[in-house]
């Protein structure tokens, strides 16, 4: 029999069961898990587990039974998972304008052709703010818009100035920008090549779909221009350019295979089926874009299955959400700030609007609810203290999430929650993200518990450092 805390050296941790195939998936708050047979589960429930038995060992290893050794591992996992709440912000997104020559159906910052751009004085203040933060290792600056190529001189200024200041402080410096590519020229391409930076391009898949989602302001499709420059940057200039699609109800009609094939055609091996966020212009087209969680889940699953089939033919390609979910299942490291709970907004990431407003995340820029201050009048401690209440968005403190078997692995986008609910707190019973992610976790747990090639491929998609220990080492070793 297992004892209680303070009396014996081992006790049963709080656990959350979920029926999975012929067994029971058992997870814990810190993310430890294992899959038990019905008999094993009954033994766990009754607390009658012989110390030294195989069952005891696997429950100890997953932190479901807490021995001193298991407790240390569970605490360590919790520390790693929540570490970002204590680190200075190193990821900064600067919007150099909100002007754009595109009229994307879901535009999150609701960019328009009107001129509204960052002044050089504001850019300097943003850099002053960023480099006032006691960053320990390095800093990463991402430029967004509107369309940043409309303010290319300012982008270059921020890059040069940022690089100089990082060097002075002996910090690593990373720089990138997102673009629609339509205003690219050979001169700019050469400069990007010299700067050694990696642009990120919004590219939604097949021509018809991309043009519906991302037309120019005049209504003309942008696909040909994007493809031309994407290939040219990659092939002629050897620039490491990346692309991300946005998925809407319109995308669902084309199917994931068509989007994956388009990505493979341009040499991309990572596809992120990122659902559109309920913000900016997406709100005015919401009924047209809106997806049922079941429909999105089926689309995503079909996409993952297609990636797995391609991998089995020797074509390496993976879906990024699946990749991060697998990582969260296997490891406590949360490399992607969007796959943390609370998300990285206000902690790991800060966003600066063209007028100098500081926001918790680039996704919430324009929504107003997460404006934390202004570069003219606020310092970093003030901004972090205003972001602190966001820590209460942890799953432990969210009704229903606090007893969900998948709470340690899922994500919730603040911007999407706000757009749908007009509040920060996700209403879980009607949450789009919760509904599809629950199904996704069930699917992924089932997949990796099979002794199959699919399991091996999926386990190879994990994104964390190999030194991070598996949450359920013996289990994964057995299946892979």
């Amino acid at each position, binding site marked *: 029999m297992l004892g209680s*805390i303070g009396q014996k050296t081992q*006790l049963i*941790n*709080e656990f959350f069961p979920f029926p999975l195939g012929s067994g029971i998936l058992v997870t814990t*708050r*810190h993310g430890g898990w294992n899959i038990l047979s019905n008999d094993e589960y009954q033994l766990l429930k009754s607390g009658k587990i012989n110390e030294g038995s195989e069952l005891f060992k696997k429950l100890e290893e997953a932190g479901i039974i*807490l021995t001193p050794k298991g*407790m*240390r591992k*569970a*605490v*360590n996992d*919790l*520390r*790693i998972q*929540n*570490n*970002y709440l*204590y*680190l*200075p912000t*190193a*990821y900064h997104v600067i919007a150099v304008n909100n002007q754009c020559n595109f009229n994307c159906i879901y535009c999150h910052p609701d960019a328009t052709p009107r001129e509204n751009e960052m002044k050089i004085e504001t850019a300097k203040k943003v850099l002053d703010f960023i480099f006032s*933060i*006691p*960053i*320990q*290792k*390095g*800093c*990463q600056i*991402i430029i967004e818009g509107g369309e940043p190529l409309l303010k290319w001189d300012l982008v270059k200024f921020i890059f040069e100035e940022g690089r100089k200041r990082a060097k002075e402080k002996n910090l*690593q410096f990373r720089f990138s920008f997102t673009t629609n590519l339509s205003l690219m020229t050979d001169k700019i391409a050469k400069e990007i090549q010299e700067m050694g930076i990696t642009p990120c391009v919004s590219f939604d898949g097949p021509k018809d779909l991309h043009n519906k989602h991302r037309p120019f302001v005049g209504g003309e499709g942008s696909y040909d221009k994007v493809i031309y420059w994407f290939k040219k940057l990659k092939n002629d200039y050897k620039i490491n350019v990346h692309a991300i699609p946005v998925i809407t109800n319109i995308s669902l009609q084309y199917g994931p295979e068509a989007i994956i094939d388009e990505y493979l055609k341009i040499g991309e091996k990572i596809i992120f089926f990122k659902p559109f966020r309920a913000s900016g212009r997406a709100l005015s087209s919401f009924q047209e874009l809106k997806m049922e969680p079941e429909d999105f889940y089926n689309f995503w699953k079909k996409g993952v299955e297609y990636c797995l089939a391609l991998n089995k033919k020797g074509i390496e390609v993976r879906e990024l959400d699946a990749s991060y979910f697998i990582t969260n299942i296997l490891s406590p*490291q949360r*490399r*992607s*700030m*969007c796959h943390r709970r609370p998300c*990285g907004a206000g902690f*790991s*990431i800060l966003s600066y609007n063209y007028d100098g407003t500081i926001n918790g995340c680039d996704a919430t820029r324009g929504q107003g609810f997460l404006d934390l201050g202004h570069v003219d009048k606020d*310092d*970093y*401690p*003030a901004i*972090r*203290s205003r972001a*602190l209440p966001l820590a209460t968005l942890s799953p432990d403190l969210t*009704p*229903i999430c*606090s*007893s969900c078997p998948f709470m340690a692995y899922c994500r919730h986008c603040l911007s999407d929650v706000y757009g749908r609910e007009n509040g920060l707190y996700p*209403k879980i*019973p*009607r949450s789009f993200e919760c509904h599809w992610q629950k199904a996704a976790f069930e699917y992924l747990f089932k997949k990796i518990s099979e002794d199959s090639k699919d399991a091996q491929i999926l386990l190879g998609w994990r994104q*964390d*450092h190999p*030194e*991070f*220990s598996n949450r359920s080492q013996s289990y994964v070793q057995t299946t892979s």
Partner: protein
Amino acid sequence: MKKYNFKIDSSSQTVSFKISPLLFPKAVILQAAYHFIEDGKVVVEGEDKIIIVTIIPNKAVTKSDLEELAYEFNIQLISSFVEGEESKKHAKIRETMLKAAVLPQTPPSFSRSTPPPAYRSPAPLSATPPDVKLPPSEQSYFKKEVK
């Protein structure tokens, strides 16, 4: 029909529950009701001795659908109660683990003070609880952070 804690009104397409807060704590009743906000409009009213929950489904339903909903609500009541009890039972373990995980890290100073606010860097990651060692890659956290 046997009398239970619910009443089905087929004409107004509603199902109402009368629940005694002596049987289920208010928090449990509210939590169970919360689970149904996607299925329809949920109204909670009452007083010290009785709480009335009414669910008005979003779409047209039959009497047997309403009956099904009524039993689902009752299951949810029991589940919410059990979850709450389980959570209470494990509160000490939870607190112990969270304290061990979080407290050794000195939170940055967020408050403004005089002399001018100084941002205290977080405690080095090596300040871990005894016997807890972070993998080396965590020391170079920046390199791995992505959005």
